């Protein structure tokens, strides 16, 4: 936030300087968050680094923040992705409607909001970040995107506002109830102790859930995503799909389940069904896409289905798997979008059939895309496999049929990745592809940490799982569930 302030006072002519300051600032933030992770006590499941200052005392609204394992890893994801995105898309802002300066301010403001939304422990503060996040992203899509950007930006905004308002209604509702029972508060921990009658709880739950299902996005609330992803710049898409959408699934864990455990239980069958539909539907839609950005967007819908299924399976494997999935999906989608963005920029087209034979023209670009694709289809040895398998095994122990249908998704994943791989990377070199340039040094520097993370997290996910596990288990236990025990007891 401070860096954004510094940039805003700089003259907008000095683009290069602005970019460098923004990048350096985001690196500092990333390093700071890593120090935070090192200082985090893994065995302690209560909130850490807690800060609370009165903000609007009249309504007992506090600027209250704190971290547990789940929010910490998501903040890490956000802060690591921002410098990568800035470096990867150095020239993205140049042709925009507004100046580069504005672009960088927007990105950094967005980063602040993202950190805030994951750290907030005051419901109202969360809501403010949740809604305020829309503003920078709206301008990022509308100001710097490709054709159709305005319509996509408005569609995105309307969808989100609609969900946001439903959530606001629920927030006010629960605030009123807390006023009747324990004294009006927005404090999450206190709100979780409320006794709410079933009908009300169900309604309040739905207010939150629909908002998050739009954000996540879950079928059938998904149609804004492909449009937004197609219109946005690749960097914006990375932040949109990689981080912002995680607020939806994060919200399901943090608010839907923790505040309304009974309603969560009531709606679980419906939600699991929607999640399974998302997995399969997203995959089929991805197979049918002609536009590479649209394809990646639909694969994400399929992946969000997995995440949601893992969350509501209410087993420690499902919950931890879903949390890990959020992180892994962030990195693999970031890789896919950034590399696809470079391809599109070079070829001036995002249509899959305009590419061909890239493996022989631009081997490095082709290989990085291939590895990111393999991660997306959850090849064992790469990061997504661990999370996807945890989700499936965690779901299987409670909802075997859902898990079986979800597993069919892995065949479809092979198709939706290998079809574009074959069309774009293999085959004879397509017309217009002969002279495409391979990755520059800057681009290689930007993408290599992502690829490295994808590989390392596939072989050694333990550091992240150690952060996630205690909190995930706590969520499951607090919601009143215990893991199903093996049928053959040792």
């Amino acid at each position: 936030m401070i860096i954004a302030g510094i940039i805003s006072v700089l003259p907008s002519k000095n683009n290069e300087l602005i970019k460098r300051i923004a990048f350096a600032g985001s690196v500092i933030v990333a390093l700071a968050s890593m120090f935070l992770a090192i200082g985090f006590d893994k065995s302690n499941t209560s909130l850490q680094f807690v800060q609370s200052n009165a903000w609007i005392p009249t309504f007992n609204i506090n600027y209250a923040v704190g971290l547990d394992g789940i929010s910490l890893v998501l903040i890490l994801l956000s802060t690591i992705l921002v410098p990568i995105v800035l470096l990867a898309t150095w020239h993205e802002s140049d042709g925009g409607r507004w100046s580069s300066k504005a672009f960088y301010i927007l990105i950094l403001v967005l980063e602040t909001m993202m950190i805030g939304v994951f750290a907030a422990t005051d419901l109202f503060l969360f809501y403010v970040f949740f809604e305020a996040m829309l503003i920078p992203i709206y301008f990022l899509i509308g100001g710097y995107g490709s054709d159709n950007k305005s319509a996509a930006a408005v569609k995105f905004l309307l969808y989100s506002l609609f969900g946001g308002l439903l959530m606001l209604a629920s927030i006010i509702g629960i605030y009123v109830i807390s006023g009747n029972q324990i004294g009006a508060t927005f404090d999450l921990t206190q709100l979780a102790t409320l006794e709410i009658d079933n009908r009300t709880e169900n309604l309040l739950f739905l207010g939150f859930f629909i908002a998050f299902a739009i954000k996540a996005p879950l079928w059938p609330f998904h149609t804004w995503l492909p449009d937004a992803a197609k219109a946005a710049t690749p960097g914006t898409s990375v932040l949109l799909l990689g981080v912002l959408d995680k607020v939806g699934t994060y919200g399901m864990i943090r608010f839907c389940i923790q505040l309304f455990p009974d309603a969560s239980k009531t709606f679980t069958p419906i939600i699991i069904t929607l999640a399974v539909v998302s997995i399969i539907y997203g995959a089929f839609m991805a197979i049918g896409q002609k536009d590479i950005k649209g394809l990646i967007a639909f694969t994400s819908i399929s992946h969000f289905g997995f995440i949601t299924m893992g969350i509501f399976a209410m087993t420690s494997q499902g919950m931890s798997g879903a949390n890990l999935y959020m992180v892994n999906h962030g990195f693999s989608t970031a890789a896919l979008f950034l590399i696809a963005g470079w391809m599109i920029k070079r070829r001036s087209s995002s249509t899959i059939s305009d590419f061909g034979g890239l493996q022989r023209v631009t081997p490095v670009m082709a290989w990085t895309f291939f590895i990111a694709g393999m991660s997306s289809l959850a090849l064992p040895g790469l990061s997504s496999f661990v999370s996807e398998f945890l989700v499936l095994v965690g779901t299987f122990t409670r909802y075997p049929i859902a898990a079986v249908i979800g597993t069919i998704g892995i065949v479809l994943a092979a198709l939706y990745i290998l079809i574009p791989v074959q069309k774009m990377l293999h085959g004879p070199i397509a017309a217009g592809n002969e002279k495409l340039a391979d990755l520059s040094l800057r681009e290689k520097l930007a993408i290599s940490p992502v690829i490295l993370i994808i590989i390392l997290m596939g072989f050694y996910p333990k550091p992240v799982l150690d952060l996630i596990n205690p909190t995930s288990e706590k969520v499951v236990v607090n919601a009143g569930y215990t893991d199903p025990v093996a049928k053959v007891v040792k």
Partner: protein
Amino acid sequence: MLTSANLVWLIALPLFSSAILLLAGKRSNSWGHVLATTVSASAFTVGVIEFFAMQGRPEESRAVTQKLFTWISVGTFKVDASLLLDQLSICFVLLITGVGTLIHIYSIAYMSHDLDRRRFFAYLNLFIAAMLLLVLGDSYLNLYVGWEGVGLASYLLIGFWNQKPAYATAAKKAFVANRVGDVGLSLAIMIAFATFGDVSFAGIKEHAEHASSTQLTAIGLMLLLAACGKSAQFPLQSWLGDAMAGPTPVSALIHAATMVTAGVYLITRSNFIFDQAPIAQLMVLVIGGVTLLFGAIIGTAKDDIKKALAASTMSQIGYMILATGLGPIGYAFAIMHLLTHGFFKASMFLGAGSVMHGMKDEVNMRKFGGIGKFMPITALTFGLGYLAIIGVPPFAGFYSKDKIIETAFNAGGVKGIALGVATLVGAMITAFYMTRVVILTFFGNERWGHTDEPHESPALMLIPIALLSVGSVVSGFVLSKGQGLVHWLEPIVNPLKEHHAEEFLPPIVVSAMTLSVVVIGVSIAIMKYRGDQLAVAPVNVSSLTKAARRDLFQDDFNETVFMRPGQSLVSNLLNLDYLVIDGTVRAVGSISLTAGSKLRSLQNGYVRSYALLTVIGALALLTVIWVVTA
């Protein structure tokens, strides 16, 4: 159990070498193949050392393990990255690294003209690493990493010349068919975890007897599905023929000797599941029996020498799968046939590669003929492989295949007779199509239609073939001497503890029957293909031949049942998404726009959508407050 610090090097060496070659790119052009081959040979050396160390230990302490690190641990789901080398996996380690190293050497010459040879070697090393992980993993999840890893290597190698669209498609087809099998493996692991709370071989083996037969049957059937994908068994067999798009050394190593036999390994490794799941075991027999005939029939009609050999591989793996369904003693015979097959089939594939090398990459046997006198060494080694596969004593196939046929007859009752007859008929067809391959390629009139005479391949190619053909001659005798392999594997699959059923037929009778059907098969082929042949395939052929040429309609079936309905489903979904789901959204949007413009006139130009939403929001808010406070 003993631990050994060496095991990880088996995998790590080829893995690092592969990474180095891929990262170095063109810079490794001059030394890439040397590094890769050296690494493969080093892995083989480690394997040999481990083998002799194992042999020197008493039977109960032969297995060694190495725990590397905790891989995944969530709740009760704990999986270590941990390796296990026991009597079963050492067989595979030696096969993979031994045959693998020979094929590396062969490829140095075979691929010498290819600009991307270093990349080829990087993929080969990647394959070796993944295949070793597959057989060394001590749990199903570790195995799974290797399982998909070899699938990836196979994909990359089939599509090595992916600038040709058909080859790229073949690679994709192999990956997707394998993924269908992988669904089976995933589900088997999930069921195993739900049942036993464990996914390691040792953990499941210990408790297998306490599980219900439904659970074991479910696990068994899912494992069988996995095996069908990887080992090209019916109904997931269709990718193997197309996989011949890969360079010939790949066909020899991956699609004949090692990777495609992973299904046999999986079932043998899971013997504690199958032995207690009779229905799953019966399905194993059925799949094995169907595939061995299916492959053999296809093999009779193929004119592409590599595709004929691929059909033969499918059929021979059918024998192995069938053997694994025959209970404890069957596993040992399956592994024996797997090893002998590894030698003779790899030798014949490399021989086919040698022929292609001398024939300008021609694969159509109708355009071969009389090559024997130009390429005597290739012809001789191919001939030894031929005698081994059709099962002429004392060549390798005689020992291993006869045992399977004998055990099939001894399965008892109608089942025994059906299986016995199937394996016998398979042996006859094998003799027929292999004789056909040999005659069309090495004998008869010269049909290649150009004046350049075929030339014998360089020594770097011939030496590996020669070494493999030594294996096709002696391996059967060596492995079966004093029931050596059976005793060796006893601690894993308990073959000798089996209550010995009454022999249906004495071994000598089975051997006599097998030899007679082989003679019949060979004779028919000689009668049919002696004398001069045309350089084009006859058109006016029986409908069975036509069907076999079309791979018994396997692709037509998949296209009609899966691909076209799948495509129309996708296009329907695309329409549905645009018209119905997004349509609803757009309808709401346009209503709000209309309403908004009216509201705007009322409210002097507020942003219309905001305005409407504020109203909706306020209404929703009021409703909720009313509900909550009511």
